């Protein structure tokens, strides 16, 4: 085959030159016309590193935010459940406290006043002239029998562990000394309460002493009584819940 310079081969050098020229021009094209920094390559690299570091940090933050939100949601659900329980327990506790005499209460009822006789003659039976702790006990028991809902003696609320006793001639309720006159207040159906108190079958001793020696025994119905809450403690050193 004859090599023809007139053919394609003749253009090859020109084509190569044009290609190189174009490539050089293209390289020139994209380069920024002026770089102000002295070490452009290293700065770009450190910038890229910073960006990568920041992006990694962002990723981490997002992840822990996601985790914390999940944990929070769980706590919120648990707390909501607890709140619900808390509300129920609180309501139940209030009910139980009401029953135990731990709340101040008001309502209609009766007031019974008991006092030693003012007649302190030498001839009178001194025992008969006085109000004894068992008199108070009997009146309180009778008031419970009449369906009373709350009872206080001289402002001392009667609770399940209360005892009415005497030390010498001093009457004690809830370990508090009381002195006459004794005012027994009971919230409840005042008609039923008065009926029982006035029933001749009950409190025979007091009623007889009232007639004979002038011991004071007075029953009054009242529209509103306010009985204070029991302020003492309920020791539970021996009693344990359940078997």
């Amino acid at each position, binding site marked *: 085959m004859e090599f023809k310079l007139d053919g394609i081969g003749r253009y090859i050098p020109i084509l190569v030159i044009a*290609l190189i020229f174009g490539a050089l021009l293209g390289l020139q094209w994209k380069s920024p016309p002026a770089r102000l920094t002295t070490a452009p390559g290293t*700065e770009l690299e450190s910038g*890229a590193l910073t960006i990568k570091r920041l992006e990694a940090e962002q990723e981490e933050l997002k992840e822990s935010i996601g985790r914390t939100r999940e944990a929070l949601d769980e706590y919120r659900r648990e707390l909501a459940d607890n709140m619900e329980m808390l509300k129920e327990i609180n309501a139940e506790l209030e009910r139980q406290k009401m029953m135990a005499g731990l709340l101040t209460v008001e309502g209609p009822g009766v007031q019974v006043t008991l006092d030693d006789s003012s007649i302190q003659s030498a001839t009178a039976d001194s025992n008969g002239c006085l109000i004894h702790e068992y008199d108070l006990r009997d009146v309180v028991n009778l008031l419970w029998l009449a369906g009373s809902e709350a009872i206080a003696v001289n402002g001392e609320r009667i609770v399940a562990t209360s005892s009415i006793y005497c030390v010498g001639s001093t009457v004690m309720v809830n370990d508090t000394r009381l002195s006459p006159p004794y005012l027994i207040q009971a919230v409840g159906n005042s008609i039923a309460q008065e009926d029982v108190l006035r029933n001749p079958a009950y409190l025979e001793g007091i009623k007889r002493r009232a007639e004979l020696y002038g011991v004071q025994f007075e029953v009054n119905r009242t529209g509103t009584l306010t009985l204070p809450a029991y302020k003492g403690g309920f020791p539970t050193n021996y*009693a344990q819940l359940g078997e």
Partner: protein
Amino acid sequence: MKSRSAQLSLAIVCFLLGLLLVAQFRTQRMTDSSLLSASSADQLLIIGSLVENNARLREEMETLEEQLSEYQQAARRTVLEGLVEELNKVRIINGLVEVSGAGVEVSLDGPIGVLDVQDLINELRNAGAESLAVNGERLTLYSVIASPEDGVMTINGTQFSRPYVLQAIGDPETMETALLRSGGLIATLERNYEGLVVSVIKRERMVLPVYKKEAIEFLYASPVE
């Protein structure tokens, strides 16, 4: 002429091809590491927004962590546990749960009045009785020991017959001493009732039943805030 213009157009095509080749090469590099090829001004913008964004995220994280620690404290159940403990205590007092513990057992056989039983209960309470039962009937604040007719005793409306057994949970020593002291209630009762047999036994452990009747309903009394 014809071959000249062909030469020229070919040269132009090659020139453009060279340009395209470089452009292609550049974009290739751009996608591989766009960061390196981005201008430092662009990088600064990216860094700026990242720093800002991360600061916001960190703030959010701090808020969430604060909330979390608050919840962790609140969810520690101490409040709830305290309430349940208090509730159980009041339930013991109200006789609405079974209780067990040490105490004394007082048996009464023979003639005895209802008011005397009431006095014995008062004595036990005075000696620190925490929970009481008579013949297996739990006593509450509202329990009434009554005698609708002679020789009959009812507690909380239920009739009981002798012997009467009083169970009291509390300090056994204190209660026994209080009951048996000379000139005490039992001594007085034994003197007053001929044929009355009383025994006081200390118990290491007794179980008192729950008050089974309906709890009191308050129709007249209402709590004051």
